[in-house]
């Protein structure tokens, strides 16, 4: 080779300028890497539309309601993202969440002979979720039945289990203070502020450590201004959330739970080998297998995560409604979480998706549900509108994918 520029020099230790960063971002957007942009635009539109229709939509009280209503679906949606990332699907999440809710309600029912104290009851339900997920995973990987069929069978079977567990009771009222408190108790305003400051500090620390270690290794870094803006952005968003919520009842514990799960699973996906292997299996299963990744193991663990998160979501749902009945796990819990993940930008073909997508997608779904409810519209209208929004979201994704294909990024 003849004399050449030092390779990759353009990427050297010199720090990017803000302008270069902004230009790169714009090029990304134009070529179809939209990130969270469409969904944030969508949320703004939703807020404007519903606020003009009913001025109660953007009130502190309704904001807290939104958090409580979103939480169960956000949890289930984060879980099902693990199946979607593999390019698989789990249709059984609704009734698995139902099984979880019903189990907790029954195990904590004071009249029952099988009454347990709070923590063991929750653990038993979560272990049941683990067992269900591992069962799904084993059938999918070891027997080779497509996940669509296995979990479709699961949908029917776990619906049956919900009915069998409820039996002739019809409705079981939750009487455990802790479980009811998950969705109906709120954080002290002061504690919420301390919590919020802690989150921002943690985020800032993580960003700075990353910046420092990359600098030491002589790698390209994001401009300091951008990192600062990111931290400031998070601080502002969280401060607004806490301030508005504190204006009403405060931050519900369910919201804290969702936040904790969000941070935990984002960490697992982005910073652990297991997370990397999930993306690899979803992107190219054969490549993952040849790289020595135990594909079956990754899949089984993912399906276990889906079911455990579904049970957790089911407990939150039961907590919000303070009871379970024969319809538990049906209706919205069935397909809202998958729709939420997809609206957020998670691909059904695997390899592309984040926890943020699940969270924001669930917020969109529930905002629409909530807004249409405030306008006094029937469930029929709700479902039609939600269906339209889902279709719109997937259309935006398809068009942006075409953009990616044209710029060679598909």
């Amino acid at each position, binding site marked *: *080779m003849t004399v*050449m*520029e*030092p*390779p*990759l020099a*353009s*990427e050297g230790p010199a720090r990017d300028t803000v302008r270069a960063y902004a230009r790169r971002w714009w090029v990304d957007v134009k070529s179809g890497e939209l990130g969270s942009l469409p969904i944030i635009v969508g949320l703004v539109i939703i807020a404007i539309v519903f606020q003009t229709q009913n001025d109660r939509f953007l009130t502190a009280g309704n904001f807290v309601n939104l958090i409580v209503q979103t939480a169960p679906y956000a949890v289930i949606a984060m879980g099902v993202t693990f199946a979607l990332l593999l390019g698989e699907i789990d249709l059984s999440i609704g009734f698995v969440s139902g099984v979880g809710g019903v189990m907790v309600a029954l195990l904590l029912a004071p009249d029952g002979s099988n009454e347990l104290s709070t923590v063991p009851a929750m653990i038993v339900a979560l272990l049941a979720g683990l067992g269900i997920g591992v069962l799904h995973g084993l059938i999918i990987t070891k027997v080779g039945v497509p996940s669509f069929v296995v979990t479709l069978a699961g949908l029917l079977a776990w619906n049956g289990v919900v009915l069998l567990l409820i039996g002739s009771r019809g409705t079981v009222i939750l009487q455990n203070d802790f479980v009811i408190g998950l969705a109906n108790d709120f954080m002290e305003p002061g504690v919420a502020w301390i919590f919020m400051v802690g989150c921002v500090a943690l985020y800032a620390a993580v960003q700075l450590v*990353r910046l420092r*270690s*990359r600098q*030491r*290794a*002589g*790698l*390209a870094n994001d401009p300091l201004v951008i990192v600062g803006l990111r931290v400031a952005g998070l601080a502002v968003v969280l401060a607004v959330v806490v301030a508005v919520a504190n204006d009403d009842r405060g931050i519900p514990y369910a919201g804290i739970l969702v936040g904790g799960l969000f941070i935990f699973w984002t960490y697992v996906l*982005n*910073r*652990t*080998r297991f997370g*990397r*292997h999930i*993306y*690899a299996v*979803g*992107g*190219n299963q*054969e*490549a*993952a297998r*040849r*790289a*020595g*990744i135990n594909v079956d193991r990754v899949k089984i663990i993912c399906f276990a995560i889906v079911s455990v998160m579904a049970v957790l979501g089911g407990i939150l749902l039961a907590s919000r409604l303070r009871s379970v009945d024969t319809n538990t796990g049906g209706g919205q819990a069935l397909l809202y979480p998958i729709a939420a993940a997809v609206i957020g930008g998670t691909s059904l073909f695997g*390899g*592309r998706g984040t926890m943020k997508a699940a969270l924001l997608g669930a917020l969109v779904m529930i905002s629409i549900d909530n807004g249409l409810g405030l306008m006094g519209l029937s469930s029929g209208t709700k479902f039609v509108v939600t269906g339209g929004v889902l279709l719109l979201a997937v259309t935006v994704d398809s068009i942006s994918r075409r953009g*990616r294909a044209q*710029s*060679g*990024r*598909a």
Partner: protein
Amino acid sequence: MTDTPVLELHGVSKHFGAVQALYEVDFHVSPGEVMALVGDNGAGKSTLIKCIAGIHPIDGGEVRFGGQPVSIHGPKDAARLGIEVVYQDLALADNLDVVENMYLGRELIDGARRLDETTMEAKARETLRGLSVTTIASVRQTVAGLSGGQRQSVAVAKAVMWNSKLVILDEPTAALGVEQTRQVLALVKRLGEQGLAVILISHNLHDVFEVADSITVLRLGQNVAEFKRTETSQQQVVEAITAGKLSKVPGQEAVA
């Protein structure tokens, strides 16, 4: 070129049921040598590399690695010896970036079991720079956005990153354009210059004559000829591929 070959095969045979895929093949490659393996379809090239890579066990013969007899029972054994194969379909995950692909399945982790992205990125850049791969602008772009030649470069860089001693390239230029083929061939040459033993499988004799030091010709599962590139011509190699002298004609003994 040093005297001890990295890899020597003596009389290696392999059959699948009644089909004799390899018959007493002798083969060797030395450090710093680019050995081309050529032959028509069905000549046994793929079977041979799969035997070397540990995907197929051999039925007979001896494999020596670095002078020592070895038995390779799986891809992991091969990797432990320092044998890396770059298959034709490259086995890259489109949704992962260059660094993530290069470290796939062998990710580095720090004390807290977190992915050590900084070290991985720095080392990946170093490896690419060492191979003079200048066409990849950022190691943090996804592989989906790379051209065929760039992908091949990533796959090769992935293979050489693990202190490998022998790199096997299966048809690395098969789907590439003129300029990209030139880049990949330059890369293959550099692997040899860095002291690695390289086995290059190709149908394209023009490519073979551009980079190979030696050429082994397989025909119907037997090696029929071995040439030094400087002492032969494409004409001779083509003759060997199509009409090389066989020590055993398949089917003949059954008839006799």
